[in-house]
C-alpha cells in the first residue's frame, strides 16, 4: 500500500515537473530571443551606437553605413495612419454589434468580422498588389490629388505620381487587418457595461447614441485603450501585406503617395541577401528594435486590460 502511494506521488511529481518545463519553455524562448538578437546585433551596436543608429537616415549596403531612421519612420507612419483609420471603424462595428445588430445576426456578423483577422497576411498582400493598389493608383489617388492638391499645406501630402504602391495604400490595408482586433476586444468590454448604468441613462431620457457616448464608451475606456495598443503592435509587426504594396524604398517620405520601407519589409527583402557581417548585424538590430517596441506596447496593453478585468 505504502509503496503504491509512494509510486503515485513520484509519478505526480514527474508529471508536474514535465508540465512545468513545458510552461517554462515560453519564458525561456522569449529570453533567448532577446539574448540572441542582442548578441547578433552587437557588431552593429558597436559600429553605430543606439542614438546614432536610430537617427541616421543612411542605408547603404555598398558603403556599409546603416541607420534605422528611414525604416522606423516608415513603420511608425504606416502604423499611425492605419490606427487613425481603423479606430473609428472598429468602434462603429463594436457599437453596431452590441447595440444595433438583431440578436440572431450577432454570431454570424461577429464571425464575419473575425474572419477578416483569419485571412493570412499574404492574401492581403496578393489582393493589395493585384487588385487594390491598381484601383488606388488609377482612380482613388488621382481623385484625392485633384481635390486636396491645390490646398497649400495639405496639398503637399498628396503630391507626386500616384502609382498605388505607397504609404496610403499600405495604411488602408493595415487598417483593414487590425480592425477586427480592436472591434472584438472593444465589443467584449462594451458588453461588460452594467445594464443598470445603461438603463438609468435611458430612464432619464438619453438617446441610444448618448448612452453609447456618455455611458458605454467612458466605462470601456481601458479596454479601448488596450485594444488600440494591441492593434498597434500588430500593425508594427505586419510583414507580408506591407512587403507587397509599400515599395521598399529607404527614404523619409513626405507625401502619402511616396513609397517607403518598414523594419519588417527590410528584413523580409534583405535578410537573405545580406552579404557582410555588419549588414546582417544591422538587420538583426532592426529586428531587436522592433521586438522591443512590440514587447513594451503589449506589456502596457496587458496591464490596461488586466486592470479592467479586476473591476
Amino acid at each position, binding site marked *: 500500500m505504502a509503496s503504491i502511494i509512494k509510486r*503515485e506521488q513520484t509519478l505526480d511529481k514527474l508529471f*508536474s515537473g*514535465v*508540465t512545468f518545463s*513545458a*510552461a517554462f519553455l*515560453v*519564458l525561456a*524562448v*522569449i529570453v*533567448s*530571443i532577446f539574448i*540572441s*538578437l542582442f548578441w*547578433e546585433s552587437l557588431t552593429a551596436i558597436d559600429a553605430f551606437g543606439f542614438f546614432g543608429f536610430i537617427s541616421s537616415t543612411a542605408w547603404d549596403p555598398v558603403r556599409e553605413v546603416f541607420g534605422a531612421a528611414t525604416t522606423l519612420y516608415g513603420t511608425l507612419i504606416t502604423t499611425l495612419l492605419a490606427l487613425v483609420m481603423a479606430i*473609428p*471603424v472598429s*468602434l*462603429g*462595428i463594436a*457599437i453596431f454589434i452590441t447595440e*444595433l445588430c438583431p440578436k440572431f445576426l450577432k454570431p454570424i*456578423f461577429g*464571425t*464575419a*468580422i473575425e*474572419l477578416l483577422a483569419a*485571412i*493570412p*497576411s*499574404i*492574401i492581403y*498582400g*496578393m*489582393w493589395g498588389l*493585384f*487588385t487594390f493598389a491598381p484601383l488606388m493608383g488609377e482612380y482613388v489617388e488621382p481623385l484625392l490629388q485633384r481635390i486636396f492638391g491645390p490646398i497649400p499645406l495639405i496639398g503637399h501630402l498628396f503630391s507626386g505620381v500616384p502609382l498605388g504602391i505607397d504609404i496610403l495604400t499600405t495604411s488602408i490595408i493595415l487598417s*483593414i487587418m487590425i480592425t*477586427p482586433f480592436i*472591434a472584438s476586444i472593444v465589443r467584449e468590454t462594451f458588453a461588460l457595461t452594467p445594464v443598470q448604468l445603461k438603463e438609468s441613462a435611458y430612464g432619464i431620457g438619453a*438617446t441610444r*447614441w448618448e448612452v453609447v*457616448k456618455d455611458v458605454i464608451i467612458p466605462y470601456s475606456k481601458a479596454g479601448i485603450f488596450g485594444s488600440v495598443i*494591441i492593434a498597434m*503592435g500588430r500593425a508594427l*509587426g505586419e*510583414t*507580408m501585406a506591407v512587403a507587397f504594396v509599400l515599395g521598399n524604398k529607404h527614404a523619409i517620405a513626405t507625401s502619402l503617395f511616396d513609397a517607403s520601407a518598414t523594419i*519588417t519589409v527590410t*528584413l*523580409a527583402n534583405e535578410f537573405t541577401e545580406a552579404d557582410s557581417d555588419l549588414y546582417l548585424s544591422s*538587420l*538583426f538590430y532592426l529586428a531587436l528594435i*522592433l*521586438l522591443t517596441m*512590440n*514587447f513594451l506596447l*503589449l506589456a502596457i496593453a*496587458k496591464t490596461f486590460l*488586466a486592470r479592467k478585468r479586476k473591476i
Partner: protein
Amino acid sequence: MTEIAKRKIINTCALSLACAAAALGLFWLIFILADVLRHGITCITPGLFLNEAAPPGMAGGGLKHAFIGQLLITFFAVLIGIPLGILGGTYLAEYGRHRWIGRFISTLSDIMISVPSIVVGTFVYAIFVKPLGHFSGYAGSLALAIIMIPVVLRTTEEMIALVPWEIREAAFALGAPYYKVILQVVYRGAATGIFTGILLAIARIAGETAPLLFTSFNNMFLTTNMNEPMPSLTVTIYQYAMGPYDDWHEMAWAASFVITMFILGLTILGRIIIHWRYKN
C-alpha cells in the same frame, strides 16, 4: 422641442455611421474573398496538385512541391508545438494556477502571441540556420512551432479552467492522485475545447510566410528531406506574385485560393464546435 429634435438627428446620424462602419467591414471581407475566388478558381486544375514546377512560360507546371513542403513543415511544427502547448497550458491551469510564475508565464504567452512572426524567423535563423550553415525544413517547423506554442498553451489553459472544480474533487475523493485526475478527468472534460484550440492554431500557422522566408527558405524542386531548404505554399506565393510571369501570377492566385479556403474552413469549423459545445 428643437433641442430634442437636434438630439434625435444626432442620434440617427451617429447610429447610421455605426451601421456604415459595419457595412464597410463586411465590404472588405467580401471584396477580398470574392477577389481570391475570382482569380483562384479558374486556375485550380488537377495539374496544380500533381505536377511540379515547370520553367516559366512552359505550360503544365504545378505546385506539388509546395503543397508537400507545406504539409511537411506544418506537420513537424504541429508535432513539436501541440504537445508542448498542451502540457504548458496544463501547468498554468492546474499546478501553477495560484503561483506567481504561472500567472507570469500566462501573461508572457499573451504577449508572445503578438510578437511579430518575422522576428521569430530572425531568431530561428540566428540559433538554427546560421550554426548549421544552411536553410532547412526543420528550421521552418521550429519557427512555426514557436509561434504555435503560446496559442495552444493559452487556449488549453482557458479550456481546462472551464472544467468545474467539483469534478476534480469527486476524483480526488476516490483517492486519485492529481496527475491521474488531470489525465483521466480534466482532459476528457476539456477535450473538445483543446481540439478546437489546435484547429485554430493550425489555421494560424498555415498562412504564415514571414517566419519561413529565412528558415525553410524556398526550393523549386520536390523534396521530402526536411534537412534541405523546403518550398512552402506561402513563400511560393510571395515569390511567384513578385515575379514577372503571368503564369506565375496565376499559380500564386491558385495557391492563395487553396490556402484561404483551408484557413477559413478551419476557422469556421472551430467556431461552430465552440458554439455547439459551449452554447450554454
